[in-house]
């Protein structure tokens, strides 16, 4: 039996569709249920940011999570497969017309992705004052809270509507199949069999 953590919402639906194609059977959660057991699989519906945590602590053997979330959390899990879904970018946004200037002594950056941001500016040897926000990140440059933001961008429409534009991309993200390290070694044949089937179906 493999336990699989899925993030609630669109990614869970897309992933279950892949499983349905591969195993030629329906995988449907009963209304409001968070656990679905079917055949050799137990699916768990969890919050996107919690998928890697469930896998890291082996509450789930494998999981599906965006690379952006995975990079931000930095948990030691195995990256099995790029599912090539849920494409987005982690980008730097500034007020339209402004230019990114790495020569400034310090930059104020608002973001909810503190670790990705810190590591990116450190790699550029730029001192950044990182301000952690939990939402409405686009507001920060408009009210002078920050010089720029680092945020997840899908189409760029939200930034545009708020008078911002993408000035630099930090990371391209898609959903990834991940595995717990010990589960991988204990259940290698099951996990690699699933890897092969899903890889053949995407």
């Amino acid at each position, binding site marked *: 039996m493999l336990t699989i953590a899925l993030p609630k919402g669109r990614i869970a639906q897309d992933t279950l569709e892949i499983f349905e194609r591969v195993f030629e059977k329906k995988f449907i959660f009963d209304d409001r249920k968070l656990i679905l057991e079917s055949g050799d699989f137990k699916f768990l519906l969890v919050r996107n940011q919690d998928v890697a945590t469930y896998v890291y*602590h*082996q509450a789930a053997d494998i999981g599906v999570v965006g690379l952006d979330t995975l990079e931000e959390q930095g948990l*030691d899990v*195995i*990256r*099995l*497969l*790029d599912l090539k879904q849920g494409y987005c970018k982690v980008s730097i946004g500034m007020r339209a017309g402004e230019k990114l200037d790495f020569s400034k002594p310090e930059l104020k950056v608002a973001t909810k992705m503190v670790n990705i941001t810190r590591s990116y500016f450190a790699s550029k040897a730029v001192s950044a004052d990182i301000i952690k926000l939990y939402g409405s990140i686009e507001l920060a440059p408009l009210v002078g809270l920050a010089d720029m933001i680092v945020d997840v961008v899908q189409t760029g429409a939200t930034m545009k509507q708020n008078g911002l534009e993408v000035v630099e991309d930090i990371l391209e993200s898609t959903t*990834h199949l991940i*595995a*717990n*390290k*010990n589960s*991988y*070694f*204990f259940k*290698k*044949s099951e996990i*690699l069999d699933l*890897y092969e089937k899903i890889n053949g179906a995407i």
Partner: protein
Amino acid sequence: MIFEHEIPEGSRLYFASSAKEKRNIEQKASQLLEKSGFLEIVTPLFSYQQHQSIGDDKELISVNDAQNHNMSIRADTTIDAVRIITKRLGRNTTHRRWFYIQPVYRYPSFEQNQIGAEMIASDDLKEALDMTLLILEKLDQQPLLQISNIKIPQLLSKSLQIPLDDFKHMRIDKLLSLNIEWLTELIYLQDLEQIDRVMQLVPKEIRAELAKIKELAMASSYRHSIIAPLYYTQMLYYDELYFRLVKDNSTYAQGGRYINEGVVSVGFAIYTDILIEEKEDNT
């Protein structure tokens, strides 16, 4: 604000039955080790050489001595114990089998109780493995044995120009995407029964290292085991044959071969906290 009842995160507190269990585990282990010719050593808490044992300096709790030399609080015992036995105690003893029962500490406040043993100037990892299994058996534990060889990921990293980090984090997708048939076979290799077939496919230098895994796995009578040739541990000193004993998400023990000051040695560590935790969970 720190409340009166608080203790630092990661620190260990045992009392009543859990403290008794800790004493019981350590007593059983020390009796078995002494019976097998090991002598006990207690090494200093402060050390000048911890950076040789720990891959990430940030994990060390650093302080300074009276001359402002950097010191660390013990984060690993192996290198210090071997250095003290061979260098400082070189004129006092020629004994080469030592064990220690003491905690290690990592930044900021992580504490881990260990039972460790070193067999200096011995390359007999089978004996170290048997000793580990004997102690665990006496403690009614039968975790899964994983046998690996750290040299294999190191050789692959060099010959295929793959960062060692890809093995450390097991980037399976990246390794499989190389489409190298023998590498794929190595990734899938898990059972001893498959090893002869895979050995025929891999390059000569990898074959020699796989043969060492095969030899150790065949010599051991412990059947609850797997082989994991691509596993890479983050410890700095294990450099060849390596084993770990795992149950669920926990490592109960690990051991391996290492070279210190040009001398080949083997050793192992058993993680007492995990054993106490399981015992407490089961009662």
